[in-house]
């Protein structure tokens, strides 16, 4: 839920990165964190297991600048991807303003993508949202790997509503900011619509 404070002249929005286990959600955040000037970001908080798998969520606040005198701050979250952390995923979707679905482009992860996308739709509904009405971007990650599904085929399988689609290699930053920009623009455009 967008939070607007007229006293401190701030607009705060929440964006959640969703997707199957090991698809690169945390890597997206890590790249944004590493590429952003210190004054524009807070700490990157990772609630992870000992093997660096996301246990509850990753979080980083990102300040993008001012719109009409209001500071715009995006709170970026990831969810844990593994199937058995579903309770955590539901909690993190509370109050969401925009969603990025990070798909793993490898052939052998296709079923995991579809299952996770279905899970996203279900969990959004549980929280009273509809994927059709929420700012949403699809990112096809790991495009540098040899065994990836062709762009057209993967897009047609995962597209839900004509959302923007970006090819990405999150580990070197390719497509990461394009994805963020697309979802942030949608969130701010929704705010404008009222």
């Amino acid at each position, binding site marked *: *839920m*967008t*939070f*607007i*404070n*007229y*006293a*401190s002249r701030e607009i*705060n929005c*929440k964006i959640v990165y969703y997707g199957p286990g090991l698809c690169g959600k945390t890597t997206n955040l890590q790249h944004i964190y590493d590429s952003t000037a210190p004054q524009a970001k*807070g*700490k990157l*908080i990772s*609630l992870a297991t000992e093997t660096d798998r996301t246990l*509850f*969520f990753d*979080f980083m*606040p990102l300040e*993008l*600048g001012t*719109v*009409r005198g209001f500071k*715009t*701050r995006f*709170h970026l979250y990831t969810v844990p991807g593994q199937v058995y952390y579903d*309770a*955590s995923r539901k*909690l*993190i979707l*509370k*109050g*969401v*303003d925009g969603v990025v679905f990070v798909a793993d482009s490898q052939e052998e992860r296709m079923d995991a993508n579809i299952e996770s996308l279905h899970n996203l739709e279900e969990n959004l509904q549980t929280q*009273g*949202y509809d994927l059709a*009405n*929420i700012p949403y971007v699809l990112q096809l990650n790991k495009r540098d790997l040899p065994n990836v599904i062709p762009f057209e085929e993967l897009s047609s399988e995962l597209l839900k509503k004509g959302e923007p689609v970006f090819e990405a290699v999150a580990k070197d930053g390719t497509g990461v*900011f394009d994805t963020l*920009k697309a979802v*942030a*623009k949608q969130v*701010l*455009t*929704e*705010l*404008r*619509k*009222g």
Partner: protein
Amino acid sequence: MAETPIIIQEHQFQRIKSVLARLCVECAARAVFLVDRDGQPIAFHGEIGDMDTTSFSSLAAGNVAATTSMAQLIGEEVFPAVVHEGERESIYISVIGRSLLVVVFDERSTLGLVKIRTKRASHDVAMIIDEVARESEDYRLSQNSFFAEITDDDIDSLFT
């Protein structure tokens, strides 16, 4: 938009700040925070120093979200308060509707005092937050010109 935005007006923010300031003194706390249950920081008062208040708010909300789900698994609707006691610093979180009142205190105070004082402050905060929620929709509609004035160029300028 997924939900109606929460819009805090200047006078409401100042009232929240004064409730937090009073609570901080009354329970000899190190710091007091008001946080939205979705993790957005609303206001704080006290010895903040270089504490990362944004991360603190997000983690407090995550903490309460997790314990609330645990409560429901054992047949409770919600745990109205969550306490973390450390060797020197402790945290008391009171759940007030969709907000969290978080008190950080040390050996200068006691859990009993914090609980008693927070109860009264919770009532005051709840009244203000209810007003904020009620008025957010009306205020947004009456001020819609501000949001409507945001142009594509304004949005694009954030990314250049």
